[in-house]
């Protein structure tokens, strides 16, 4: 199955291998530039909830919102921990609803029911990957997300959207840009914050914080990335709710 092409390329690669720096050696940091965490949209209900001292969060997402066999290290759980660390007096209640292989439309249809059961203050909706993999018409994707957001808002929650991961190895196979663009458009349309997971992970890869091209089979990289995502997301939420630690009393 390995054509000669790869042999030739391997030689090329070997020639270039003098390149230093694989991210494993780099110091473990994962700073996110401010402009990637800036949002002009606000989360008024979250702000109120923080003042009252109790915040209920629901994360709705596909497979990339979890780590197989290690849920507690995935970004939702890390988000909860990070929020708790910054706002110790806040009771953070978090539930996760993973909908494997569901498109935005399929996931969206379950939202009203979920809202009735869970009644969260904040819904974090991660979507787009499955739609990209199944090449759903971006227009249909957009209206599905838009309808979902309206349903969530109607049920009384603040909403944050999360876009697909940056996945360099599958870049030649999955075309995510149209879905990222449409998520951005929906966020603008409804004036809700969009957590740009794609750009943030891209930034980490470029900075050398993480080597996302890595062929590692181990779970360690995934854990570290999710930990950083959780922390970035917590900062993002606190900023959008204008609720720094000082504002809590």
């Amino acid at each position: 199955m390995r054509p000669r092409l790869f042999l030739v390329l391997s030689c090329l690669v070997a020639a270039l291998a003098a390149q230093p720096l694989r991210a494993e050696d780099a110091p473990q940091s994962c700073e996110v530039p401010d402009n990637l965490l800036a949002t002009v949209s606000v989360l008024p209900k979250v702000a109120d909830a923080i003042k009252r001292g109790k915040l209920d969060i629901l994360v709705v997402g596909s497979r990339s919102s979890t780590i197989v066999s290690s849920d507690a290290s995935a970004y939702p759980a890390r988000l909860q921990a990070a929020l708790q660390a910054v706002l110790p007096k806040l009771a953070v209640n978090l539930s996760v609803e993973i909908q494997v292989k569901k498109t935005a439309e399929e996931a969206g249809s379950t939202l009203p029911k979920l809202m009735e059961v869970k009644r969260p203050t904040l819904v974090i909706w991660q979507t787009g990957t499955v739609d990209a993999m199944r090449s759903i018409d971006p227009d249909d994707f957009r209206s599905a997300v838009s309808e979902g957001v309206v349903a969530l808002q109607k049920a009384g929650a603040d909403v944050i959207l999360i876009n697909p991961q940056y996945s360099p190895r599958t870049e030649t196979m999955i075309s995510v840009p149209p879905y990222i663009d449409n998520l951005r458009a929906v966020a603008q349309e409804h004036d809700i914050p969009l957590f740009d997971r794609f750009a943030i992970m891209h930034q980490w890869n470029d900075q050398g914080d993480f080597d996302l091209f890595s062929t590692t089979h181990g779970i360690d990289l995934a854990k570290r990335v999710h930990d950083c995502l959780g922390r970035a997301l917590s900062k993002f939420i606190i900023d959008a709710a204008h609720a720094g630690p000082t504002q809590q009393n």
Partner: protein
Amino acid sequence: MTSIDQVAGTAPAGAVDAPAVATAARGARAPAISLPVIGERELRLDLFRGLALWLIFIDHLPPSLLTWFTIRNYGFSDATEIFIFISGYTAAFVYGRAMLESGFVVSTARILRRAWQIYVAHVFLFTIFLAEISYVANSFENPLYTEEMGIMDFLKQPDVTIFQALILRFRPVNMDVLPLYIVLMLSLPGILALMRWKPDVTLMLSVLLYAVTWRYDLYFSAYPNGYWTFNPLAWQLLFVFGAWCALGGARRMSQIIASRVTLWICVVYLAAAFYVTLTWYVPAMSHMLPKRLELWMYPIDKTDLDVLRFAHFLALAAITVRFLPRDWPGLKSPWLKPLILCGQHSLEIFCLGVFLAFAGHFILAEVGGGAAMHALVSLCGIIIMSAVAWLISWYKHVADKSAPRKAAVGNADMAGGSL
């Protein structure tokens, strides 16, 4: 755009034989006088098609520093528009003449042969793609990307996948342009025949088809689901418009293009488009756009060639034509030579670009993707593309020298380069 034109136009090294060849070219060209336009080789076309090829290559690589030089970051349209327009222009130019010289049947046969070449090129690229995917599927198992790796599922049914690829319904990312081009080429005989009868009516029919496509949401379905990334029913507008320009439209429009009003409309539109694009990269600015405008404008659809994109391309083209005259001496400068050479061998260089993009991805994946490495890969790709274009030119020139008469005819569709 025969390679003979090329010799006459660019007078590359070994110009000793050029006069003789040029005479042959003129001889071959003589019957074309009845075409609305006969011309020198339009180096501007080669230049911008070469530029489009470079930009498409850069856009196909993972984003890097160089990506900021691609025009899609500064407005609505991107290199694909340039590419399809120029393809329509050159295809009409070459095969329109062929149709006058040798009739409908023979020129149709030539066009079909060209379409076949493009099809073979597409299948070749698909084979390389399959090899790459299979390699990744076998070697890559990062738990972070469990979800994304689901895309490899199609490898479990190679029979279906390969068949669907052969009938152009399964197209991996970055392999959308050639199928679009094949469909456009297949419709070219009809377009040209109509154009010979009434160019303006043809253009109007094309606009009508475009409108109907939008109104009734027509599309080409793809495998395993979805639709063609470039909808030929919409993109044909650009292609036919290019053909229309080649067959006299451009000349008739020259007064409009030269007018000050047009210039200002173009400048204002381009500036507005730039501003809108800026809001995509600087989220803080997005609130400065009126909500109503946003609702009306988004999404700016690439699949169906949004009117905003088309208009953006027109504005760019109008300004370019205005400020870059046909006889601009810079066109002969050695600095632009690589671009022009690439533009002159567009099918080969396009395929090479797609291949190099795959290879670039692969290298970045294996070596690790620092910014410097990114830039290096992009740069190497461009150098390789230019070098190969130069090699092809050189070879064709040598081959033409040994058989000038035959080449004058036989090359018309080879170098038709109408990709």
